[in-house]
C-alpha cells in the first residue's frame, strides 16, 4: 500500500495526470478523459463506476499518453473514472470525477448558422423589396406556364387530369412542394370543371391532399363538384403504387399527367406509360438521378429548385416571387464560397474549408 501510495505521489508530482473535463459546446452528454503517464506504463485500463458503484471497463490502451471521450451521459450528473496502469515494476491507479454540463450553443455549427442567417436575410430582403413595389425579373419556367394549357386541353377532350404527388411521405419537403402546386391545379380544374385524379401512396399525404383539393374547390365556388373519392389511397408498396397508376393511365386515359415530388426507380415506368397514352406530361423532382428519365419522356420538366419555386411562381404574388430572388443570391454566394475555397485549398490554407465542414 505504501509503495503504491509512493508511486502515486511520484507520478502526480510531475506532469502525469488523469484529467476529466466536460466536452464544450454540446448537450452535456460527453466527458473528455485525458491521461499522461511515464513511458514505462503500457497496460492501461479505463473504467467507469456505474450507479451501483461497480467499475465497468470502458477502454483498453497501450499508450501512456492518450484520451477517450465518454458519450451518452446524463447532463449535470457526476461520473467517476478510474485509470489503472501497469508497468514492469508496479501498478498505479487514479480516480477522478467529472460532471458533463450542457451548453446553450453548438459552436461547431457556427458556419451553418451564419449561412442560414445570410440566406434567410437575403430572402426576406427581396420579399420586402417586392412589397415596396420593385419590379423583380423572374425567368420563365415553361413547365409551369404550360399548366393552364394542359388543363385546357384536358377540358377540351373531356378527359381527366392525373396528379401524382410523389412517393415520399409528408415529412419530405418535395411532397409539400408538390401539394402546394396541387392547390393551384385543383382550383384551375374546379374552374374548368375538369376531373382530377390524385392517387396517394401515404395515408398522411392522402388526408392533406384531400383537404387541399376540397379547399381549392370551395375557393373556386365549386364545392358541389368536389368528389372526395378523386383523392384516394392506393398502396404503400412502391411498385404496387406504380402498377395502380399505370392502370389508371391506361383505363382513364387522362389528357394531362403531372408527376411532382419524390420519385425513385419507378419514374420511367410512370412516364413511358403516360407517353404511350398520348398525354401531355409535366414532371418535377429534386431527385437528380431521376431527372434524366423525366426529361426524356415528359414534355416539361421542373428541375430541382424549380419544383420549390413553382408555388411562388404560380401564385404570381409579388412577395413570393421576391423570395425566388433570394435563391439567386444564395447561388451567387455559394459560387463565391466555392471559388474562394478552391483558391484557399490550393494555397494550403485549410481553415476556410475547415470552418465550413466541421466535425460534428
Amino acid at each position, binding site marked *: 500500500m505504501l509503495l503504491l501510495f509512493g508511486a502515486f505521489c511520484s507520478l502526480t508530482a510531475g506532469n502525469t495526470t488523469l484529467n476529466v473535463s466536460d466536452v464544450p459546446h454540446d448537450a452535456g452528454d460527453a466527458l473528455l478523459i485525458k491521461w499522461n503517464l511515464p513511458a514505462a506504463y503500457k497496460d492501461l485500463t479505463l473504467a467507469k463506476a456505474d450507479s451501483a458503484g461497480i467499475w465497468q471497463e470502458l477502454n483498453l490502451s497501450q499508450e501512456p499518453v492518450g484520451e477517450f471521450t465518454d458519450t451518452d451521459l446524463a447532463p449535470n450528473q457526476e461520473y467517476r473514472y478510474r485509470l489503472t496502469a501497469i508497468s514492469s515494476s508496479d501498478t498505479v491507479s487514479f480516480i477522478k470525477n467529472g460532471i458533463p454540463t450542457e451548453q446553450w450553443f453548438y459552436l461547431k455549427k457556427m458556419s451553418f448558422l451564419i449561412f442560414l442567417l445570410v440566406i434567410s436575410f437575403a430572402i426576406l430582403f427581396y420579399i420586402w423589396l417586392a412589397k415596396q413595389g420593385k419590379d423583380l425579373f423572374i425567368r420563365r419556367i415553361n413547365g409551369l406556364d404550360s399548366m393552364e394549357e394542359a388543363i385546357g386541353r384536358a377540358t377540351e377532350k373531356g378527359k381527366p387530369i392525373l396528379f401524382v404527388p410523389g412517393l415520399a411521405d409528408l415529412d419530405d419537403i418535395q411532397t409539400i412542394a408538390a401539394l402546394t402546386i396541387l392547390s393551384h391545379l385543383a382550383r384551375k380544374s374546379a374552374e374548368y370543371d375538369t376531373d382530377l385524379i390524385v392517387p396517394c401512396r401515404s395515408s398522411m399525404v392522402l388526408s392533406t391532399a384531400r383537404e387541399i383539393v376540397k379547399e*381549392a374547390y370551395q375557393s373556386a365556388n365549386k364545392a358541389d363538384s368536389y368528389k372526395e373519392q378523386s383523392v384516394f389511397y392506393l398502396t404503400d408498396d412502391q411498385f404496387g403504387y406504380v402498377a395502380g397508376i399505370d392502370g389508371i393511365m391506361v383505363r382513364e386515359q387522362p389528357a394531362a399527367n403531372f408527376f411532382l415530388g419524390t420519385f425513385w426507380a419507378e419514374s420511367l*415506368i410512370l412516364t413511358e406509360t403516360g407517353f404511350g397514352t398520348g398525354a401531355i406530361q409535366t414532371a418535377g423532382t429534386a431527385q437528380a438521378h431521376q431527372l434524366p428519365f423525366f426529361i426524356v419522356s415528359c414534355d416539361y420538366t421542373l428541375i430541382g429548385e424549380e419544383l420549390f419555386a413553382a408555388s411562388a411562381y404560380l*401564385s404570381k404574388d409579388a412577395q413570393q416571387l421576391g*423570395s425566388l430572388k433570394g435563391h439567386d443570391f444564395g447561388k451567387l454566394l455559394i459560387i463565391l464560397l466555392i471559388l474562394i475555397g478552391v483558391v484557399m485549398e490550393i494555397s494550403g490554407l485549410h481553415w476556410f474549408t475547415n470552418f465550413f465542414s466541421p466535425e460534428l
Partner: protein
Amino acid sequence: MKKNIPLLIVLVAGLLVIFSEFIPHRPFSMITETLENWFMIISGFAMLLGQISLIQVNSAKVRNKDENWVYYLIGLISFAVMLITGLLWGMDKTAGILGHGEGIKTWLGLKPFDYLFENVYQHLSATMFSLLAFFIASAAYRAFIIRSFESNLLMITAVIVILGRSSFGAMLTGWLPDSLSWLHLPKLTDFIMEFPNSAAQRAIMISAGLGVIGSSLRIILGIERSYLGSDE
C-alpha cells in the same frame, strides 16, 4: 381564426426545430426527440386511414358495378386474404391468433402469409420493376437522337457509360497499354460518373437545397399558404 391557428402552429413548430438544431440545452434537445416520437406514432396510426380509403374506393366500384369491377373485387379479396392469413397464423417467427399454424405449414411448406408473399407478391413486384428494362430501351430508341452539339455530347457519353458498365466494355479496351489506360472504358465510365456527373448532381442538390430553405421559410412565416388549401 380557422387559418390563423394552423399558421401559428407551423410558425412555432418550425422555429422550435430550427432552434433545437443549434441549442443543445434542454428543453430544446428534448423537443426534437419528442417531435420525432410523435411522428413515429402518427405514422403508425395513419396507416389505418389509408386502408379505410382503399376499402371505400374499391367497394364503391364493386357496388356500382363500374367498368372492370371484377378487378376491384379481386383487389379487395387479395387484401382480405393477406390480412386474414397474417392475423390467424402470423408470419415467419411471429405467431398469429391461432398460433404458428403447424398443420398448414407442413402442407404448404410455409405459413400461408409467407407462402403468398414469396410465391405471389415477390414475383409481381419483380415483374413491375422489370418493366423498367423495356421502357429504358424504348425511351433510348426515341430520345437519343443526334440533333445538336449537346445531343452529340450526350450520345458519346451514353455510349461510353453503357459499354463501360457491362462486362463487354472491359474486354473491348482491356488490351490498351498502360500509357493509354485512361481510355479503358470502365475507367472512363468511373471518371464520367465521379466528376462531370457528380458535379452536375451536386449543383442540382445545392440549388434544390436553396429551394428547400426558401420554400420552408415561406411556409414557416405564413407567406405561402397553398398547403392549407387557399392563399387567403
